[in-house]
């Protein structure tokens, strides 16, 4: 499944994944945003792995936020933007 969300600032967030037994799997997040440190991208994707696909956007965003340390800087996107891209893919 494939979902895209363009943030108000114009950055694109893309989520590609599969849903197996009602859960997200093989999650990949990509886009033209900025993220420091870059390795945090796999933390973001990893925080969505195995998560029920029918979780609300807010709950998905909370999952992502909770997985990231204080040192992570998301520029031009947010946990909410990733959650919205995922939800668009699910729907």
């Amino acid at each position, binding site marked *: 499944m494939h979902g895209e969300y363009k943030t108000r*600032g114009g950055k694109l967030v*893309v989520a*590609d994944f599969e849903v197996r037994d009602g859960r997200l799997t093989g999650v*990949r*997040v*990509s*886009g*033209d*945003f*900025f*993220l*420091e440190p*870059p390795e945090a*991208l796999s933390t973001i994707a990893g925080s969505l792995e195995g998560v029920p696909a029918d979780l609300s956007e807010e709950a998905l965003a909370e999952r992502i936020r909770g997985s990231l340390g204080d040192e992570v*800087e998301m*520029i*031009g996107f947010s946990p909410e933007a990733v959650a919205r891209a995922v939800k668009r893919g699910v729907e």
Partner: protein
Amino acid sequence: MSAGERWKKYEWRLIRGEPVDPPVNVALDEVLVRRVGSGERPPTLRFWERYRPEVVIGRFQSVSNEVDEEAARREGVDIIRRTTGGGAMFSEPENIITYSVYAPLELVSGMSTVDSYAFLDRWVIETFRSLGIEAYYEPINDISSTNGKIGGAAQARRHGAVLHHAMLSYEMDAAKMLRVLRIGQEKISDKAIKSAEKRVGPLKRQTQLPREEIKERMIETFSRMHTESGLVEDSLSPEEMAEAEELTRTIYGTREWIYSIP
């Protein structure tokens, strides 16, 4: 400390950049930002030149979402991945001006990332205004003008230094760009080509100056705004070039890196 004083603390070096294979430019960014971070090299402004056309995609972009790989192969366009985030740019050697600024973190200390983008490109906006182009910064990272977008910047703070680079459109072959880049869901129609041409305001459409002359004006403006006695002409050391070639072989030129997000 005023903005001018922040820059003028350093003896800035200038590397005019010989043409290299596309991924070597990405490797050079890592080599030089490391060296500036460790104090082995003074803060530096480097211009990129390349042998072949390329699509440079952002660190977090998916190749297949951004590039028509079959078309890229057909057109002889290399696909490379930057170390920084941001969007894809199509670049032909004579159509793009690319530069990197390597500076100690101190230059942007206390500034938010978003503010530092505009701060690090102020000299570029100033150059364009002096050429009569109504250029302005469009946060986060776009260098724009009343006649369309000119280019985009990307930044990373790594290895104790800041790497800030930008690609500026000098001339644009919109039809070729649309064949190679997947821009939204647009089809390659005359309408799409016209609309791409309208959104982008390449420098050649806005000034009579040749590309090399614009580069010179940029160098002059940087020297005047940010240095006490001008940029110091410099070149890559053999060690720096050797390191970049090694990083190209092991990382930036490999399929694993370029297709890290397929």
